[in-house]
């Protein structure tokens, strides 16, 4: 058994079997991370470059840790402190890096489709660490892993994705993944932040009322309001957003049932999530971060295979 794809560009390209293979392998890596020596020699002949054209804390550190735990050699590249600032093109930069014998590229870029473009032009395996408003596959995989860990299975699970659906690559990857695995998805948020025709395009239900979405779901995956991606005001103020769509402990306590709250980070505290929820018993946000390393180890391990 192996992955049906040479790259991890998006969940859209993966089969259900691919997703199951990544999640089950991640489970074994999670056990590795509990050992006295949290490291295996699997990728000691592999060199990986982390190419970050956009800022990141969690994802970059999580990928780097995953690579080191697999014994890979790691190169880090941040666009802001490199020749990209002098105007070098993406393809030139990557070809120069590859001439130094690099086997895999982990890339984050603000342009949707940038990793797909690279995959067409270079021989190395590419892992998408987030491209524009398109996909963030490893985030969706670690979200799925965390949900599976909590509930046992994704089949029939009711997941509400709440917030800025329009600008969120996490939302899109999650929707693809959850549907492939047989979960039910509802997207919730203000009408200005939910793309038109999403029901027809992605077969998800839209709910504009936060309380109704929360009453329906088992899991609320709360997204960050991405102020940096909005060129125009799509809601009148952060305070108003918080009043209509912010999740507080009071709202959750009134539901009459327990739901799990997730967030891909970084959290805008007091906007989409109040602190008493983010740090409270409903939240599995820090489990998500912990699982991120195991899931990324699984993806890198499975892609490093030369048979692919």
């Amino acid at each position, binding site marked *: *058994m*192996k992955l049906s794809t040479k790259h991890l560009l998006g969940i859209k390209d993966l089969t259900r079997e691919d997703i199951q*293979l990544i999640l*089950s*392998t991640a*489970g*074994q*890596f999670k*056990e*590795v991370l509990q*050992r*006295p*020596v949290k*490291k*295996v*020699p*699997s*990728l000691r*002949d*592999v060199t990986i470059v982390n190419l970050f054209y956009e800022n990141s804390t969690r994802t970059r550190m999580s990928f780097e840790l995953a690579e080191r735990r697999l014994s890979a050699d790691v190169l880090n590249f941040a666009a802001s402190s490199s020749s990209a600032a002098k105007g070098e093109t993406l393809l030139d930069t990557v070809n120069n890096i590859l001439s130094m014998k690099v086997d895999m590229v982990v890339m984050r870029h603000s342009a949707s489709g940038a990793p797909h473009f690279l995959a067409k032009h270079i021989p190395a395996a590419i892992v998408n660490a987030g491209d524009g408003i398109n996909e963030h596959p490893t985030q969706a995989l670690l979200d799925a892993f965390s949900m599976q860990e909590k509930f046992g299975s994704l089949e029939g699970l009711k997941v509400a994705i709440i917030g800025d659906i329009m600008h969120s690559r996490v939302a899109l990857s999650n929707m693809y993944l959850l549907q492939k695995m047989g979960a039910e998805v509802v997207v919730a948020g203000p009408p200005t932040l939910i793309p038109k025709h999403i029901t027809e395009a992605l077969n998800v239900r839209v709910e504009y009322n936060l309380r109704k979405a929360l009453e329906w779901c088992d899991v609320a995956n709360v997204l960050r309001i991405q102020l940096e991606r909005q060129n125009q005001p799509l809601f009148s103020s952060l305070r108003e957003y918080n009043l209509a769509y912010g999740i507080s402990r009071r709202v959750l306590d009134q539901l009459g049932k327990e739901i799990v709250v997730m967030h891909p980070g970084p959290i805008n505290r007091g906007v989409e999530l109040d602190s008493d929820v983010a740090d409270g018993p409903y939240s599995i946000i820090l489990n998500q971060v912990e699982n991120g390393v195991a899931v990324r180890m699984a993806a890198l*391990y*499975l892609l*490093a*295979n*030369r*048979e*692919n």
Partner: protein
Amino acid sequence: MKTILTAPQLAITVKRLAHQILENNPTLTDTVLIGLQPRGVFLSNRIVQEVQALVTSGSIPYGQLDITFYRDDVRKSLHIANKTDIPFSIENKRVILIDDVLYTGRTIRAALDALLDFGRPSQVSLCVLIDRRFSRELPIQPDYTGKTIDTIISQKVKVCWQERDGVDEVVLE
């Protein structure tokens, strides 16, 4: 196809291995048994059962080790990882590794590397059901052997277990 061990022979061999392990580790204090995933675990389950029946006091520390991430051919062919479960410390313990067939010795090499990442055992020994002699690629030998056989590369030793294959037997194909 040639039968190497029938079901009754296999049962006797497993019993003998259990007795030999007890003979060398009479008190079983400081001794732990670890079966190798995936197929060595069927043998180790049986051995642990036998040993446990012979020892009245306490239960024997028993774990399972998966060596997938330690293989030397990890990038040539993809192997699916299995569960590792070693719920005790192996520090200063006498570890007995258990696998079904010893062939090139590469699995055991990987197992030793994996094992040492869990701590520093005082001693490691190896127990196998079938030893395919003259086919080693590394200097590794068993301490407890069910049966030694001479084979050529094109032959395949198949160990079947009731729990998995519906029948207990060892055949040469």
